């Protein structure tokens, strides 16, 4: 039966009302030559119980970060998610609604998006935010495209400390749209040399991919503006509980990944891209924007606005092709930011930075482990260098104590040698951090001895 409601009798009555004798007759417009003459070659049907058993078996083949001890970050974070989020976003009125094209029946979600936009503006210090993008990487790519549109320039300058996957997505988007992708090391002199009258924007990440805080961000933004380009900052929203809003530092467009704001890691998706900019660029914004207005009786209400930028109205002249975005995840982030509020987000950020520093001190005091960026300020991630191959160490950590010790950086920054990107969030207790440190110390000692 699947999920079909009509009984055989209903179907008969429907056929009679249409005036045909079988469903087959309704398929007449499909030429015989291209009909599928066999059943699809697929498994199933599964009843609900068998489906659950099957899925549980598959889930059991995975090692999840709840049942292991994970120090993985690099764009997807294990931040604490209050229970109310799952309960509230699971409400059918939200979960099973479509894009709010009919505002009278969608006031709930429209108000959510208005509040979401407000919260993103509050966090980033920007004037206007859209109602979400697919993820941090595509939000960054859309920001670059928007900058080329605003400036009429073709070249996008990207710091090499931006998330490597974001850089790949940027390269893909720009390449096929025939814009120019250019990468530069994060040093003032190099950036100054790379900037020119062809530069549409400079994209930097704060804290950068390796976790370090860019101290001279205001100078980089200043140099960018001096050459007539826009400054795009990719930020971690949790870090904004403690770090200055990029708007205060002069950023023109601020984007990032909102997964940390109450969204499950989900093997990397679905995610939440956020996107905010200064007022003067609002007509170039991609995606949906919700605004407040009044109804015929003067009551406050919400509706999608500035619609003439969008694909369903402007078609090939739209500011972006985005249609479906990530509304339910924007709802999750809204609930998260409201529940934590002013003091909660600050506290999370403080917990994170102190635990990360505690872990950093302990890990760097292990013999044979070095700190390649000693003295550089960081938020929740940092790099450690190992005397033995990073992948082997990670394997051993997982085997011994179920620890995912971090991301081996060899594929992304081979110049760092055997290095791990370690992430510590508020979900890790001191005990767990100590266990990681002890295990790593033992593993390194054993493996180094063996190697000798």
């Amino acid at each position, binding site marked *: 039966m699947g999920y079909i409601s009509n009984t055989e009798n209903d179907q008969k009555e429907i056929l009679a009302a249409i005036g045909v004798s079988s469903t087959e007759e309704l398929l007449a417009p*499909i030429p015989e*030559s291209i009909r*599928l003459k066999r*059943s*699809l070659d*697929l498994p199933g049907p599964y009843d*609900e119980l068998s489906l659950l058993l099957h*899925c549980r078996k*598959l889930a059991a*083949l*995975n090692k999840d*970060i709840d049942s292991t001890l*994970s120090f993985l970050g690099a764009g997807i974070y294990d931040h604490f998610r*209050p229970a109310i989020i799952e*309960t509230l*976003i699971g*409400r*059918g*009125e*939200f979960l*099973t609604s479509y894009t709010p*094209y009919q505002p*009278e029946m*969608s006031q*709930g*979600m429209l*108000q959510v998006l208005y509040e979401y936009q407000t919260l993103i*503006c509050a966090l980033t210090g920007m004037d206007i*935010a859209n109602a*979400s993008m697919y993820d941090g990487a*595509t939000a960054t790519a859309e920001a670059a495209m928007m900058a080329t549109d605003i400036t009429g320039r073709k070249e996008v300058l990207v710091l090499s400390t931006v*998330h490597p996957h974001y850089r*790949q997505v940027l390269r*893909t*988007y720009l390449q096929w749209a025939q814009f120019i992708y250019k990468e530069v090391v994060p040093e003032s002199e190099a950036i100054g040399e790379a900037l020119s009258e062809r530069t549409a924007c400079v994209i930097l990440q704060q804290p950068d991919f390796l976790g370090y*805080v860019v101290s001279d961000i205001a100078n980089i933004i200043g140099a960018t503006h001096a050459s007539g380009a826009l400054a795009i900052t990719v930020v971690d929203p949790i870090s904004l509980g*403690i770090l200055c809003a990029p708007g205060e530092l002069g950023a023109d467009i601020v984007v990032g990944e909102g997964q940390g704001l109450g969204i499950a*890691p989900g093997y990397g*998706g*679905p995610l939440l891209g956020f996107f905010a900019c200064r007022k003067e660029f609002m007509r170039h914004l991609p995606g949906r924007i919700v*605004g407040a207005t009044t109804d015929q009786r003067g009551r406050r209400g919400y509706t999608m606005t500035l619609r003439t930028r*969008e694909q*369903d109205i*402007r078609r090939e002249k739209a500011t*972006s*092709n985005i*249609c*479906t*975005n990530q509304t339910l995840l924007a709802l999750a982030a809204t609930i998260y930011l*409201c529940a*934590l*509020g*002013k003091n909660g987000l600050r506290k999370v950020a*403080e917990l994170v*930075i*102190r*635990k990360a520093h*505690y872990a950093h001190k302990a890990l760097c005091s292990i013999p044979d482990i070095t700190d390649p960026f000693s003295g550089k300020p960081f938020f929740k991630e940092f790099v450690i260098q190992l005397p033995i191959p990073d992948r082997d160490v990670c394997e051993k950590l997982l085997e011994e104590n179920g620890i995912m010790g971090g991301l081996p950086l060899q594929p992304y920054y081979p110049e760092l040698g055997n290095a791990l990107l370690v992430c510590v969030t*508020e979900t890790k207790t001191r005990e767990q*951090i100590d266990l990681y440190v002890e295990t790593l110390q033992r593993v390194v000692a054993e493996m180094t001895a063996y190697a000798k």
Partner: protein
Amino acid sequence: MLNNNYQMNKTAAMESYEPPIFELSRTGRSGVNLPDEDVPNYDLEEMLPQHLIRKDLPLPEVSELDVVRHFTRLSQRNYGIDVGFYPLGSCTMKYNPKVHEKIASMPGFAMLHPFQPEETAQGALAVLWSLQSFLSEIGGMDATTLQPAAGAHGELLAMMMTRAYHLEKGDDKRNEVIIPDSAHGTNPASAARCGFTVRSIPSGSDGCVAVEELEKVLSERTAALMLTNPNTLGLFEKEVVKICALVHDAGGLVYCDGANMNALLGIARPGDMGFDIMHFNLHKTFSTPHGGGGAGGGAVSVKQHLEPYLPIPVVERRKEGENERYWLNYERPRSIGRIHSFYGAFLVALRAYAYILTLGPKGLREVAENAILNANYVRAQLKDHYDVAYNSPLCMHEVVLSAKRQKQESGVRALDISKRLMDYGFHPPTNYFPLIVPEALMIEPTETESKQTLDRFVAAMIQIAEETKENPELVKSAPHATPISRLDEVKAVRELDVRYEPLFIKENA
């Protein structure tokens, strides 16, 4: 006749105004219990440059109960499939099975990190690999990627692959993408986003692609044709085989916008019609919840000749001794590159996978048959009361009506009819799309609705048709039963208010 019980549920909560959450804020309130610090209380100024430490954070301060009530009340001011009939054409608003939510929240799926070693995510990779192969089979294609986050993202990917394909053949003149005027707005927007020039072609008198119009614009500049089949009028493009052949003869590729695949499951496959590339909307055809505007899923399937261009990474399977091992292949030199932070919307793909397993081959075909059955039923019941676009004798999974007659007779427009439907407890159909139908009302009932629900909807539509004759003002001023009436959209643009002000909430103001 209509039963008032089916009117929108007017509870006190729905009627009452819910203030922006910022107005509930009171200094010192908090909605979360966080752990105390268990590590040394390092000084912030020793960890961060002083000039970068934030001074203020203008977020609301509300209790957990405030948050729960606020968002519960907002949900009551929102309408979803779980509340009632949602015949929004082109959006395939079918029932979203609850078991999928249970599966997607299993920690063994929800709590996976995309950077964890492949050996520790074999179950997840198996799901992705299996869904790739299921979709290839359903579409009659050779390979599939699940990375696009939504249909439009899939379209954009397809355009990138189209460009890569032509460029690799040394053909850099192909800069035009042909799109029928009945297409979704995302088609031309996606083509333009990839630097192509859009050539729009008018539909024929039967609502399908006019082959002679296509022939006029085909040339050595043609990169691709983007075609929705069944098209947005709910009609099967009966010349599709010829159309594909013509485009191929001109050296172009043919792309299928799969938004309407719900009509074809197990009956016919784009790959067998001649399409080279297509996208699926997992949130339409495969019943993953749309969540008020996403997360969606926009898988793209291709024929063999386009397989090398798929975005990285591709999920692959190999035998290792007795076992099958799944892995992520990044070594694909002809790939167009990466288009998503990680591997697409895994938890959305997981729901679609569960849906396909539940239905199986027979069940999927029944989906399409019943979707077509229900749409034709609505069409048959309403054809005497409204004009049917292009007078087509049969439709596929959706029917496009026109309120042209009502507009001429009493000035009542499609939008008015839609608003009046709300008073009868139904979500309206899609309005003013496709653009080529005046006063369009695009109705897609889907297979999960019962005849009894459709009868109530039909009764409401007939009643509204009567009302347009007897009391047109009642319809023009609708809705009357919703928490708010029609909004001032002009004011929304002119007096732009897109965030709550002031960001700092003043108490007891």
